[in-house]
Structure formats: C-alpha cells, structure tokens
C-alpha cells in the first residue's frame, strides 16, 4: 500500500514555510501559519484577496509539495449538485433497464443495480471524499463568491462533516478529510457560518522585496535591472487610485511580455505598448498611458538610482 509514500505534513510553521518555498511559492510567515493550522487541524483554509495575488496557486503548490491529487471545483452562479457533487448516468441506466427487462429480471433487483456505484458519475466534491493511496487529496473550491447562497449552505454539511448524502445510496463519508482550500475574490460577502469553519487569511499584494523574489522564481530569465524597474513601476501603480490594481499574476505576465519583445530596459514606449497586459480596464489604461507612465517611470528610476538593491 505504502509504495508511493507521500511526504508527511510539515511539523512546524518553519517547515511549512520551507515546503511552500521549495515549491516556488514565496509566502509570508503569516500565510504559512494559516496553512500549517489548516493542515494539522484538518479544517478548510479560506483565502480572500484581490484577483491575481496567488490564492489559487496555494492549492496547486500544496498538491505538488505534498504529492496529493488536486481536485478543483470552479464555482459559478447556479452551480448545482449535479455538476458539483454527483449525477446518475441516465443513458446507461436506461440501457441497463431495457436489458434487465429483456432478461426478465426482478424489479427490486434492477433498482438496486441501477442505483449503484457503477452508474454514479462523481463530480469534484464527491471525488474529494474518496480515499487515495497518497493520502487525502487537495480540494480547491475556487472563487466561491461566484456561486449563490444555497450552494454555500450545501457546502456547510460537506465541510464540517466531510460527508455527502445521496438519497438512493446513503451517506458517503470520507475516512480522512481532504485538504480544502477555498478562495474568494470578494465580489460578495461569504456567509459567516461558512467562514467560521475555516481558517481565514487575507492575501495581500506583496511588498517590493517579496515581489522581486517571486519574480525571480517565476520569470527567471529576466535581467535584474528589468525586474527591479518592473516591480518598482507596479508598486507605484498599486498606490494609485485605479479601478483594478495589477496583481502578481499581471506583474509576471508583463515581465514575460517585455522579455518576449526583447525589452532590456523599461522605457515609456515599451510601457505604452504593453500596458494592456498590466491594466485591464480602458479607463485605467487611458489614465496611465503616455505622460503619467513616463512620470512614474522617472520616479522609479530615481529611486533605484538612489538605493541600488544588491542581489
């Protein structure tokens, strides 16, 4: 059974931090504390924050670092039990009935056969309750704020007892609860009843130093000067009153875009050409493009010249 033994859970906050770092995720110690608690007390981890700050990434990293299966449930408005938990395979059930009737089988027997595991299509939430050889899987419930309140209420049972009730079969309970990571962009407030069952963490934009570290790991080909200018510029943008501030994902994308265009040094022109990668609203782009971008860039350059960061 223990042929492919998965790594054990990290024993301390330091070990958790090291594990995340080992999987190329640069985390604050505060985040590592929350992750550590979630892993050891077997409660869901609830991550909130702006888009593109690396919430979803945490689940992926946990899955990779602990060598567990990652099961992802992408939420949307009107998500229902049939697409989140389970559904019966009607077509096969009907064939089975026809065959059974042709063979003159007993009705009771047909009923017990067609409502069995064989005809059950398992969706992410049910899959997450199944035992895996490597250990309980990582269940990522992504962008929970996109669903509606009824689905949230349904999750309450699942997340507190890790069980699902199927009327035709009975209750299915996980022997070992999965590692649950829930993310929300906060387009609406998630009910306290659900949050209460989780460890909460607000994922913030990183500071310049941390963002440079992240960039070094995620876009290793970028020249240090370019990375520093990019991070400086993005940090300046985040202090502005924009409709949608750029996240870390945008910083990485932008750096990669600049590298693709063989930009070695950040210039106003290069910024204007690629601003669409960084800002996603026309108003914001119109505001920054041109003179404002040049002004910010000058500031960034002046600051870099004043305090050169050795790396």
């Amino acid at each position: 059974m223990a042929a492919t033994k998965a790594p054990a859970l990290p024993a301390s906050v330091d070990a958790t931090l090291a594990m995340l770092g080992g999987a190329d995720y640069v985390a604050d110690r505060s985040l590592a504390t929350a992750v550590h608690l979630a892993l050891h007390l077997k409660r869901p981890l609830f991550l909130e924050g702006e888009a593109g700050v690396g919430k979803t990434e945490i689940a992926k990293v946990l899955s990779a670092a602990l060598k567990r299966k990652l099961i992802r449930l992408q939420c949307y408005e009107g998500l229902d039990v049939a697409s989140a938990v389970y559904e019966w395979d009607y077509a096969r059930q009907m064939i089975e009935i026809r065959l059974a009737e042709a063979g003159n089988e007993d009705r009771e027997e047909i009923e017990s056969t067609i409502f069995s595991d064989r005809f059950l299509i398992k969706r992410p939430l049910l899959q997450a309750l199944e035992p895996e050889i490597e250990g309980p899987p990582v269940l990522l419930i992504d962008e929970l704020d996109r669903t509606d309140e009824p689905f949230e209420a349904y999750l309450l049972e699942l997340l507190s007892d890790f069980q699902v009730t199927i009327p035709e079969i009975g209750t299915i309970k996980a022997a070992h609860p999965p590692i649950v990571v829930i993310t929300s962009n906060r387009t609406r407030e998630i009910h306290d009843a659900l949050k209460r069952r989780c460890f909460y963490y607000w994922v913030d934009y990183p500071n310049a130093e941390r963002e440079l570290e992240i960039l070094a790991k995620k876009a290793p080909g970028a020249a240090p000067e370019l990375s520093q200018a990019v991070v400086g510029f993005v940090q300046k943008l985040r202090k502005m009153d924009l409709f949608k501030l750029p996240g870390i994902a945008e910083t990485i994308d932008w750096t990669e875009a600049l590298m693709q265009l063989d930009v070695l040094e950040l210039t106003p022109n290069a910024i204007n050409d690629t601003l669409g990668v960084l800002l996603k609203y026309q108003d914001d782009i119109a505001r920054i493009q041109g003179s404002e971008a040049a002004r910010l860039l000058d500031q960034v350059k002046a600051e870099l010249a004043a305090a050169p960061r050795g790396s």
Partner: protein
Amino acid sequence: MRRQSSPATAEQGRLVANLMHFARTLRAAGMPVGPGKVIDAVAAVRTVGITNRSDFYWTLHAVFVNRPDQRPLFDQAFHVFWRNPELLKKMMALVLPEMSLDLPEDEKQEMLRRLAEALHPNPESRETGETELEFDAAMTFSDREQLQGMDFEKMSLDELAQAKAAIARLRLPVLDRPTRRFAPDPRGARADMRATLRAALRSGGIVELKRKSRRLRPPPLVVLCDISGSMSRYSRMFLHFMHAITNDRDRVYTFVFGTRLTNITRYLRFKDVDLALDKVTEAVADWSGGTRIGHCLVDFNLYWSRRVLGQGAVVLLITDGLDRDVGVGLAHEMDRLHRSCRRLIWLNPLLRYEGFEPKSLGMRAMLPHVDEFRPVHNLDSLENLVTVLSAPAPRRLTAAAMLHNGVRAA
C-alpha cells in the same frame, strides 16, 4: 454542554483563561466570536506552539478574523490586550477615552474610540444615542457636513400611519431572472431524467417523462438614496420605503449619500422600522448637507459595485440631481454604473412639476446614462414604480432618449 478540557497545568490554564478573555473583548468590540472560537483558538495555539509573538498573532488571526475589515480591529485589540491585560481594566474604568499611551497619535485615537465603545455598551437607546452621535461628530474631520441627527418625530402621526400602511403594502415585483438551476415543472421544456427514472422504477411499465424548467429568482436590488439638504423633505419617506423593500426580499442593498456614501443595508435589516431608522440616523453623518453625487458614485463604483452588482442587479438611484460639484466627473461615473448593472432607474422628486426640464449640469450629465427616469415624490409615484418594475424592461438605451434625445455617445 461544553467540552471540558483535560486537566492542564497552571500555565495552560492561564492561557485558556486569557484566550477566553481576549475572545470576549473581540466579541464586545463587535466581532462575531462565539464560544466555539475559543476552543478553536486553544487547539490552534497548541498546534503552532508559542515560540514567538508573530506566530502567536497570526495563529489567533487565522481563528478569529473572518473579514478583511476586521483586521484593524483585531490588530489593535491584540496589541493592547497581549501587551498588558491590565490595560483593559484601566480602560474599563475610564469614562471618556482620553488617556495617554505610547502609541502613534492617529492609531491611538481610532483604537480608543472603537475599543472604548466596545467596553461601554450602551443598551439604552434614546438619550445615550444622542450623546454618542455628538461624540461621533467630534471624531469626524469635515466641517462641510452638517452633522445633525435626523428628526423622525416631525412626521405627523397621521402622515406616518398613512405612509406606513401604504409602504407596507408595497411589493416590488422586479422581473425575475432565470438561474442555472432547475425545478420540477410539468410543462417544462426539458426532460428531468432523474425524476423520470425514479418514477419509472416505482411504477414499472410505461415510463412517464418528467419535466423541469429553469428556476426563477429576483435579481439583486441596489438602492442609492440622496439624503442631502435639497432632498430632506423626502428622505424620511424613502427610508421607510427602503426599509419595506429590504425586509420584503433577499439581496437588497441600500446606500445613502450626501457628501459621502454610507452602506445602511445592515441597519435596515432590523424588522422594526423605528429601530432600523434609529440605527441609520446614528450611522449616517451627513444628513441634510451638500450633495457630491460624482464623488459618492466614485466610491460606490470603486468599493461596492463589484460586490453588490453581480447577477443582473437593478439599481434605483433616488436623487434630485442637484450636485454641488456641478457635475464634474459625474457623466463618467454614471456611465460606469450603467454598464455595471442590468437596469438603472433614476427616481427624481423634481419630476413632479409639469414641464420640468433637466437643466442643472448634474442632471444633464446623468440623464444619458439611465434606463428609466421616473418621478417619486408621493405615495402614488411609489406605487406607480411598482407597475413600471413589474413590466418587462424596454430595450436598453431607449429610455433616456425619451426625455433627452441624442446625447448618448455611441
């Protein structure tokens, strides 16, 4: 009922007692901290261990904090409490929150006010409510706002009874939106295979096809109500109106604005209308002052629109459009608001005058961006609103053109 903790050492016992005390402080300060959280906190602290202050902080943070806006409160409470628990006793003894602490100046003010309020719950409403309001006033920094409690008593009893009765009858049948969920429906367009198969097994023989159709649900409703001086004659009525619709359905969000935007949804959820309006009066600082529509809409668009305008929301904007900032930046924000919702309905009390022409700059800036422009000045017009909302929405972009042709940009 509570699970008894196993015999612990004196040290642990003190920690548990302290955590319990800390949880009580947070609860008193308004955070939803139940007894279950204390058990969680003890388990969490035992898991992480107390090695350094930062880990301890983030451990408790993960347990007690549920929302980003609770973070500052938690932060202050943590630092005050775990620095010196004796401090709390001192604070409790203080009547007015004026004491010196070695904290940065601004932090001190904010912390003392909120924690002091938490430690001095005032259950009696009327008299203390007024003093609290004055206290609040002292803490605000703008002299442009006329800070005064709104006087609901002025409404005559007759008027009040009439309005209440009419408003209580009011139902806003904003057209339901189809969701992606299904409900059984004998005349539905889709086959419900699951129900069909179950029915077939029950009866055997001929399979009767069960049907289903999309479930309908009312869209979220967002009310933005102007409470500035020029609207003060109507504000009372509208508050009753907003209270009625807030308690009539789910997903109603209410905001009032004058010189600043205030979310009053939570207060209006109180079933008792007097209690709800008392709470609103306490919470809102800019009654009957000036109007800065553009400024308030910027706030709404930036901080709230993405949270309350999902899922096909309908927006009711109640204002006379008289803007102190003479419409600067208003068109832009109205445009954004219009694009973010399914239907934007402007209710304007000035529209009751025959031959009214929207001449003020603010109005001219707003008008091209609304789907519907309606009078709202008496109970009749509120009832008319019901008929309008229950009719299917006309095609977008046409409504504004009825009053104001050709201004809309392509």
